[in-house]
């Protein structure tokens, strides 16, 4: 199962047939395991990593440190939920250290993102303070180097 996930994490487009061959399994078996993993939400979704810059799409993203007041019984969960429900929020994580939540926001313009932070995020009950860091350049995301120019430099034939 882990090996199937490893292959799919690298390439969501890999076919069941290919997985079966590479792992020396039956196609039916692979199909069954994938279905089970989808049903049990081990596999959440198949997504595509896009370099939007190349499409000419302007996007602004920001990383926001959020300090909160934890609440009785639920701790950080309920304030976190109120934050991550917003579609502008791409990711939200509880952190150790000097702040509580690390929130990634994506918008079309800087104004849109600042506006969201000021009017939506900072005003949520339980949010004590926010610190906004705008992203200037992404070098690597989800293990993929964005502008990877490492090419095959081997001799074409060698003994």
């Amino acid at each position, binding site marked *: 199962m882990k090996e199937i996930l490893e292959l799919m994490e690298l390439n969501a487009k890999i076919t069941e047939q290919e997985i079966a*061959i*590479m*792992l*020396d399994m039956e196609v039916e078996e692979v199909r069954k395991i994938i279905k089970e993993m989808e049903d049990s939400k081990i596999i959440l979704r198949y997504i595509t990593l896009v370099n939007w810059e190349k499409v000419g799409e302007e996007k602004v993203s920001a990383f926001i440190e959020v300090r909160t007041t934890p609440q009785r019984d639920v701790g950080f969960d309920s304030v976190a939920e109120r934050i991550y429900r917003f579609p502008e929020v791409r990711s939200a994580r509880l952190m150790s250290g000097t702040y509580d939540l690390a929130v990634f926001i994506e918008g079309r313009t800087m104004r849109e993102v600042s506006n969201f932070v000021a009017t939506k995020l900072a005003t949520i009950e339980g949010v004590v303070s926010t610190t906004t860091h705008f992203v200037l350049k992404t070098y690597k995301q989800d293990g993929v180097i964005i502008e990877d120019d490492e090419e*095959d430099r*081997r001799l*074409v*034939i060698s*003994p």
Partner: protein
Amino acid sequence: MINKKDWSEMINPTVRDIPPSGIRRFFDMVTEIKGVISLGVGEPDFVTPWHIREGCIYSLEKGYTMYTSNQGLLELREAIARDLDVTYGVTYDARRELLITVGVSEALDLAMRALICPGDEVLIPEPSYVSYAPCTMMAGGVPVHIATTVEDSFRLTADRVEAAITPRTKILLLCYPNNPTGAVMTRRDLLAIAEVARKHNLIVISDEIYDKLTYAGEHTCMSSLPGMQDRTILLNGFSKAYAMTGWRVGYAAGNADFIAAMTKIHQYTMLCAPITAQMAALEALRNGREGMKRMVQQYNRRRHLVMQSFRDMGLPCFEPGGAFYAFPEISATGLSSDEFAERLLMEEKVALVPGSAFGPSGEGFVRCSYAASEDDLTEAFRRMDRFVKRYGVKVKTVVNL
């Protein structure tokens, strides 16, 4: 005036008479053509893992730019000794029984030169890596080839070794997992060979550069067999397991007398292996195990992909248990190895190495390296499939009962 012909007459006849490598001619042909997918490469498609490269950069920053002792950094030898002990249970004294060399290639040359007297015979299973026979000849020895066949899964059998032995036989050279066939030897196979070696007092030079790339069963180290450690010179390095081909660092392990003799040649001809490469090798041994295992796992997945593709194409291919080569039989196309490789290159722009480049028993086969990205493999096999169909290969229906 001296013309060209006169100059060549001044070359040592042993060197002059060694035929050019069969791979060389093909290499020249491939480099002429654009857009070729090459499955003809005998080295990993991975770049050396970053922590190893970074370790080397750090060593340069710290000023490690000097000679090392002739035998190589003691720390590295100790790390190798530990690795051999943990992996195969063979114990070598890092001070007296290990020598760091400039790749296995140098270690092989040293072993040959240290042991061979003029006319001594060296048994070399074939098809085999292209350097073995020339290395033997340049050391004054006589290469004696032992053909291996697809019926034996290209394994060396004791009776074939026995049959090739003469009073002049001194060395048996082994290379398993094998380049170009991908064949591996089981412990039982090796025990039988070891018995022959002991009986006829042969020295075994065992080139185990592909040991970590073993997929079917576990690799057996020749020197771990009873009574074999002293008569075996074990050669290994970092090129294949840690994707470090260009660093040129390998080693030889053997009894103190052999290592001392090899060190004597090494100290006068090479002095020492480059310290930067030795530092990188040390980092590879210290922290490279996990990364190496991941690479091996990927090779194994591609190996399955390659096997299935040949089956789908209708080309018979025995299952390679190690290295990163498949050695399919192409005689069903009616072409020779050379013709197959040449036409595949011209017509479909896929480069393989003709099996005949590795010796006469390689005729009728081609070496296909799967040290290539999955995308390249898939595209290459699509083209190859089209190619073999054009030459009338039909897929035989296999009935599974």
